[in-house]
């Protein structure tokens, strides 16, 4: 296949790039005692991008014969030429470390059959319901992307990638009277079925989701206001990805995000170092070579409080004079590469979680993202739902509280960080990041102690 693509690209005018991407997608969903959905899909084809006279042209096709690829290249080049008549800002590409060779992320030997997976998923869904008589609804959802890619560019990238990104999403709803409470456990990996269950066991997730939903029936609410809180690794990941990460994507920077022109400035506490790292083994956003054929490398975004770098494609890196490090990603062969995060994390520090709790007089320990999700904008102002809160009173961890949202300006929150634990977990959940097209990403970090606005409720 690589030879076929290389031969095809040699005829491209200007810069050319061909990605052959075959995805085998498996979805299995068990819901309330019923196998609600099982689907197996193959989506395969070539995405061809040409840069001519400073404008891109993109054509995707299922015809990957030599003739079909030649036709796609000539159509993409023609589209670019027509577009160039209208396009005002001309595009050029920065030099990059281009990938070559084999990139195999996992071993498919030992992957269970679809029949075995269906049995295990139905059993887990039953386990959620049988955990407590208060459970009124439950789902277990499995989603797997098995990807094979060949990427060739006219300036020398030539890679073959085998990648597998499975995830689980478990929900439990507990009810009493007309009161309903839901809990979610979700996680994903880059790796095999075994790796996925090695990260969290399905039984454990089923039990935890059911237990939390039941405990929330008796939990109270917290009074809104400014609090000193400890964010768990998942919430640190949400903050790093949603509230900070998007603002440092170079296309958003160019559009005027809050960090425009702030490279070299202090944006966070000295204790905070944040990276985006496609090379992080096993994390759900692992990308060893991106869809422009650039090697996946670690980008230090914030180094001990100082903003050091944005995330780039080759196009944005040329404009902002930076080095692209593998953040141009396309979801399927029909999508063109966009600037995306991979695994976005705050690095661990030296503090001990128990000591961090002991240092809080009146505050909260917050765990995992809530069902409502969250939102953030280009000013880094955010609002996230939190799944579990625990009251901290005079340094002691107390009861569960629910219905919590946290909000603030993410950089102000990072400025307020006064303790960073030595733990490290990268686990954002099972979802996708959306930016015109989806992408599998991951995020995480240690426990952080900081100040946020807590939206609560009076009861």
């Amino acid at each position: 296949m690589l030879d076929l693509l290389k031969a095809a690209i040699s005829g491209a005018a200007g810069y050319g790039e061909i990605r052959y991407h075959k995805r085998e997608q498996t979805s299995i969903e068990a819901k309330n005692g019923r196998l609600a959905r099982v689907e197996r899909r193959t989506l395969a084809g070539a995405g061809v991008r040409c840069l001519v006279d400073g404008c891109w042209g993109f054509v995707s096709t299922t015809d990957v014969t030599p003739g079909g690829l030649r036709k796609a290249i000539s159509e993409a080049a023609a589209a670019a030429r027509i577009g160039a008549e209208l396009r005002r800002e001309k595009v050029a590409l920065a030099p990059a470390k281009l990938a070559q060779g084999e990139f195999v992320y996992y071993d498919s030997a030992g992957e269970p059959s679809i029949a075995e997976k269906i049995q295990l998923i139905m059993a887990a869904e039953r386990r959620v319901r049988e955990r407590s008589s208060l459970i009124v609804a439950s789902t277990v959802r499995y989603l797997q992307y098995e990807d094979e890619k060949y990427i060739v560019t006219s300036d020398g990238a030539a890679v073959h990638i085998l990648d597998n990104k499975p995830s689980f999403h478990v929900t439990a709803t507990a009810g009493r009277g007309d009161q309903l409470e839901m809990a979610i456990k979700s996680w994903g990996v880059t790796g095999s079925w075994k790796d996925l269950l090695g990260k969290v066991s399905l039984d454990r997730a089923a039990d935890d989701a059911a237990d939390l939903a039941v405990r929330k029936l008796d939990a109270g609410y917290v009074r809104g206001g400014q609090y000193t809180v400890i964010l768990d690794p998942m919430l640190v990941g949400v903050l790093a990805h949603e509230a900070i990460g998007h603002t440092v994507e170079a296309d958003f920077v160019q559009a005027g995000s809050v960090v425009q022109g702030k490279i070299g400035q202090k944006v966070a506490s000295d204790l905070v170092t944040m990276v985006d790292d496609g090379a992080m083994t096993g994390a759900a956003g692992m990308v060893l070579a991106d869809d422009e054929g650039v090697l996946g490398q670690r980008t230090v975004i914030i180094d001990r409080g100082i903003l050091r770098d944005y995330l780039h494609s080759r196009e944005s890196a040329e404009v902002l004079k930076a080095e692209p490090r593998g953040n141009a990603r396309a979801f399927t062969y029909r999508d063109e590469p966009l600037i995306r995060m991979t695994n976005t994390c705050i690095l661990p520090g030296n503090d001990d979680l128990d000591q961090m709790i002991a240092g809080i007089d009146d505050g909260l320990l917050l765990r995992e993202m809530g069902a409502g999700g969250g939102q953030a904008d280009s000013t880094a102002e955010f609002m996230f739902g939190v799944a579990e809160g625990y009251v901290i009173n005079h340094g002691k961890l107390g009861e569960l509280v629910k219905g919590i949202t946290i909000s603030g300006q993410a950089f102000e929150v990072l400025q307020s960080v006064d303790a960073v634990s030595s733990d490290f977990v990268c686990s954002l959940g099972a979802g996708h990041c959306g930016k015109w097209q989806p992408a599998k990403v991951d995020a995480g970090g240690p426990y952080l102690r900081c100040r946020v606005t807590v939206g609560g409720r009076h009861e």
Partner: protein
Amino acid sequence: MHLDLCDDLVRRALALGAADAEVFYRKVRKLEAMFEKNDLQVPKGDTYEGVGIRVLLGGSNGARLGFAATNLLTSESLENALSAAIAIAHASPEDPNYSLPEPAPTEPVTDIYNQSAEERTLRDAIDQGRLMLEAARGADPRVTLDSAMYTIEVSEKAIANSRGIRLSEKRSLFVCQAMAFARDGETVSSFDMEVGASSRMSGMDPAALGRKLGEKVVATLGATTIPSFRGAVIVAPYAGIDLISPPIAFSSDAENVQTGRSKWKGMLGTQVLSPLLSIVDDPSIPGAAGSTAFDREGVPARRLELVKDGVLNHYLYNCYTARKDGVASNGRAAGSDQNTPSIGPTNFVIAPGERSLDEMVAACSKGLIVNRFSGNLDEVSGDFSGVVKGGYYIEAGRIICPVREAMIAGNVYDLLRQVTGVSRESVEIADMRLPYVQFDGCSVTGKQ
């Protein structure tokens, strides 16, 4: 011939042991010119072809379902898809409600396919998009087209099943959509949008659309904050696509009814909306974006008077949910070759009312026109809250000023029972046709 491919795969599925089989084929050629911040982005072309295969294995307590899809139409990949579908069916439990529909006569819809669309190129998409861009900017130099897209799509769907259904349909669709704002010094208007769709390129006027959008956003410059109040809210068609049609489509979806997520469970024949509201789901509108002769399962799709004068007449069914309720499917199976059939409306139409928008405003002592809504709506409970975009404040029957930073909140199912006006004017937005709808007793939170 695509139906021959479908037939062949149905035969092969039966040979592998399926009691019933269905193959849905889809082919799409799509050309797209996208603009951002007044500049052309990547022009794109895509050619797609794929099949979705559903097989049923017989059993004593119903059928076992398997599904697989592929867009690699090589014999190897098709073979793999067939065996994957069979393997999934073998591993799945029996369900008494799985079945495939029998053939029934369909009526072709007029004007959804125009052969000249086959000849269109990316240059056409870029040129048409450029007309829209220049008209929006020409309306006023303060206008920025934040994002805009012109797409040309020519598609074909075909379906065959082991019960004898053999159907195919071609369509062409030109879509023009844009979102814009205006900036005057430090003052920035709300974002607003316009969408147009037609089966013919000549059926749409991108320049008129761009001009109208430009004028709309300039008119919201100089917006001011307002005090909080409880009163009338006139939901404009573009806000209605986020606030009004989703909860109605959700609650009439038979799957949501059967799983208890719909508030309209057990409510057939009863008043669910204000008597001023009638809703028709009509797949037979000539040339409309959601028109089709048959659904994802090959069942004829016909006009449904979903809600008449506020009374719920129908749920939207596919074959699975229909069988569960012991009724016939009404042809609302939705989806493509890549998924098992879900449920959805076709062309969603809220019938226009008697009064003009001007009369509605003139009769309003205190209220707000909401042109767009940006926020959350929980379709199960109906609770919503969000920000008003492109709003206008009304007092004593007159539009006083454009409004910024106002929020609205309430329960949409409650408000839909308290509608006090539906406009005579109606706007076509892709596969929806919506009038202005006036709610009373909505809480508006201003910033004064």
